[in-house]
C-alpha cells in the first residue's frame, strides 16, 4: 500500500494504509521536517524578537551559556545586534516559501513537458529531451548564479531562477515514467473510451506517476534550500535585511573567529533540515518503489 495512493485515492482502506505507512517513517527526520514546516508557518508567533530590531549596544552578544550571554537572546546577537534565534526562525519561512514556490513552478512546467514529450514521442520528445539533457549537463549552481546576477536579487527572481534550473529533472523523470505507463492497455482502452489526449495525460497517466513525483519533490526541497542559501551567501539571493539562512552564514563569515554563533547556528539549521528531507525522500523512495509493492 503506497502513500501516493493516499495522496490521490478516496477509499478509506487506502487512507488507513497511508497512515500506517507514515507511522513507519524514520522518526527523527520526520520530526525535524515537520518542525521546520511548523516553524516556517507560525514563525512570527514563535520568534521572541523582531528579526529586524537591532540592539546596537549589545551587538555580537554570545549565546546564553557563555559569558555575557543572556536567556533573552538564547543564541546571541549578530553583527548589528539582531536576535540570531528569531532570524533563524523567520529564515525558515524564506527557505520554505522559496522551495514550495519554485517547486510548484519548475515542477509544474517539468511535469507538463514530460507528459507531452512522453505521450506524443516523435519530434516533440526529441526536442524537449535534448534541451533537458543540455540543462542537466550544465553546472546548475553556476547557472542559477548567472541568472540571479543578471536579473538582480529579489525573492521573485530567485523563484524564477530556481524553477528554471529545476524543471529539467521533473521533465526527465515524468517522461521516463510516462514511457512505461503509456504502454499499459488501460491507456489504449481510455482512447477507446473516447478520452482526448489531455484527459489521458491528466486523468490516467499523471496519478500513476504521483508517487515518484512526491519523492522527487521531497528531495528537491532540500536541494532548493541549499541553492537558496548558496545564492544568498554569494549575495545573489534574498536581498537584506530579509533573514535568510544563507545570507546569515555569509554575514557572520568575517567574525568566524570571534563571534562564531552568527554563522554556525543557521549553518546547523541548514544541515539538519536538508539532511532530514533527504533521509525522508530516500525512505519515501524505498517505500513507494513499485517493485516492493504487491500487485
Amino acid at each position, binding site marked *: 500500500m503506497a502513500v501516493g*495512493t493516499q495522496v*490521490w*485515492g*478516496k*477509499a478509506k482502506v*487506502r487512507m488507513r494504509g497511508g497512515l500506517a505507512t507514515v507511522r513507519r517513517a524514520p522518526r527523527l527526520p520526520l520530526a525535524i521536517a515537520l518542525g521546520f514546516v511548523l516553524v516556517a508557518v507560525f514563525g512570527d508567533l514563535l520568534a521572541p524578537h523582531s528579526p529586524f530590531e537591532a540592539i546596537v549596544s549589545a551587538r555580537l552578544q554570545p549565546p546564553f551559556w557563555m559569558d555575557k550571554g543572556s536567556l533573552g537572546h538564547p543564541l546571541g546577537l549578530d553583527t548589528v545586534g539582531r536576535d540570531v534565534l528569531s532570524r533563524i526562525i523567520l529564515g525558515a519561512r524564506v527557505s520554505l516559501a522559496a522551495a514550495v514556490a519554485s517547486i510548484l513552478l519548475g515542477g509544474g512546467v517539468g511535469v507538463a513537458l514530460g507528459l507531452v514529450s512522453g505521450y506524443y*514521442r*516523435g519530434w516533440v520528445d526529441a526536442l524537449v529531451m535534448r534541451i533537458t539533457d543540455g540543462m542537466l549537463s550544465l553546472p546548475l549552481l553556476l547557472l542559477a548564479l548567472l541568472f540571479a546576477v543578471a536579473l538582480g536579487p529579489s525573492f521573485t527572481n530567485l523563484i524564477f531562477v530556481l524553477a528554471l534550473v529545476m524543471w529539467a529533472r521533473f521533465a526527465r523523470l515524468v517522461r521516463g515514467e510516462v514511457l512505461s505507463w503509456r504502454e*499499459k*492497455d*488501460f491507456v*489504449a*482502452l*481510455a*482512447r*477507446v*473510451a*473516447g*478520452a*482526448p489526449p489531455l484527459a489521458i495525460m491528466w486523468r*490516467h497517466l499523471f*496519478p*500513476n506517476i504521483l508517487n515518484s513525483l512526491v519523492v522527487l519533490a521531497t528531495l528537491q526541497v532540500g536541494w532548493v534550500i541549499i541553492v537558496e542559501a548558496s545564492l544568498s551567501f554569494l549575495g545573489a539571493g534574498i536581498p537584506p535585511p530579509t533573514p535568510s539562512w544563507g545570507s546569515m552564514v555569509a554575514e557572520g563569515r568575517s567574525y568566524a573567529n570571534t563571534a562564531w554563533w552568527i554563522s554556525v547556528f543557521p549553518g546547523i539549521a541548514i544541515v539538519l533540515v536538508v539532511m532530514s528531507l533527504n533521509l525522508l525522500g530516500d525512505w519515501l523512495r524505498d517505500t513507494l518503489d513499485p517493485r516492493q509493492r504487491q*500487485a
Partner: protein
Amino acid sequence: MTTKPVAQGATPLLQVDDLRTYFFTRWGVVKSVDGVSFSVGRGEIFGLVGESGCGKSITCLSLMRLVPQPAGKIVGGRILFEGRDLLKLGESEMRRYRGRHISIILQDPMTSLNPVFTVGDQIAEPVRLHQRARGRDLWDRAASALRLLRIPDPETRLGDYPHQMSGGMRQRVVGAIALACEPHVLIADEATTALDATIQAQYLALLQEVHEKKGLSIIFVTHDFGIVAKMCHRVAVMYAGKIVEMASVRELFDHPAHPYTVALLDAVPPLDYRVERLASIEGQPPQLYKLPSGCSFSPRCPRSDSLCVRESPPQVTVDGGHWATCWRLVDA
C-alpha cells in the same frame, strides 16, 4: 453453436478492404498487416486465428485506429463501418466511433485497468464521454454493465479498486467497460488467453450470452482452435500479415485447404489417444521486415515447390465463401 449469421445481404456491418498497416523501424519496413480483407455481418462471430506475431492484434488495433505511434502507420485500405470509411475520419470523429460503435477487450486484465481509479470510475468513463450521462444515471449505467457481465453485487463492486479483484473478475470488468456503451462490434483480442481454463469457459459463455441478447457482432482473435470451434461462425487464418484462408467454421475444420491451416489443425493435440510427440510446424514464422519471395509460408511448407518460392500465390475459391491463397491447395 446457436445462431447462424444473419443473412449476408446488402452491406455487412463492418467491411475491411485491403488493409495495410506497416511499422517503420530501423531494421526496415515491417508489414504487419499486408492487404487484409474481410467482412463481419450483423450478429456474426468472426474468428481470426494465427501464430503469435502474424498480425492479428495489429489488425484489431488498426480497426480501432489505435496502432502504436509514431512507428506504426495504416498505409492503405478501407475500413467501412455501416458504409463509412473509418480511415477517412478526423481524430475527433474517430473518437466518437471508438467504444461507442466498435469496442475492444484486450488480453491482459492486469494492465487493462488503471490501478488508481475505482472500477466504477473506469466503467463510467466511456458512458460519460460518449453518451454524456451524469450523476445517478451514469452510476446506474455502470452498475448495469457490471450486471450484464454477471458480477455479483454490482453497486458495491463499483467502489472497488482493481487490485481488490481476481484476474477473472478484472477481465469481466474490462468486458463491462467495453460493452458499457452497447457497441455494435466487439473485438476480443485474445480476451480469454490470460484466464485459466474454468474461468475461460465461463467468460466465453458470458460473451455468447451477450452476443445473443444484444445481437452483438464479435471479432474473436485467438490462437486456440477449441475456442474457434465453440464460438465462431466464420474464420480467417492469418499468416505473416495476410489472410491465407477463409471459410465457415464447419468448412475449415472439415476441409482445410491451405497447407498452413492443415498444419495448424494437426498441431492441436488430440484428446482421445496418446501421442508420443506433439505435431509442430518446422521452422519459425518469417521476420516481417524480410519476407521471402513468393509465398511467405513456402520455406516451412511441406508442399512447396519452385513456383511457390518464385511467385505470390493467387486467391483460389474452394467452395462458395471458402477460399485460400495457395498454389498447391490440399485436396479435401
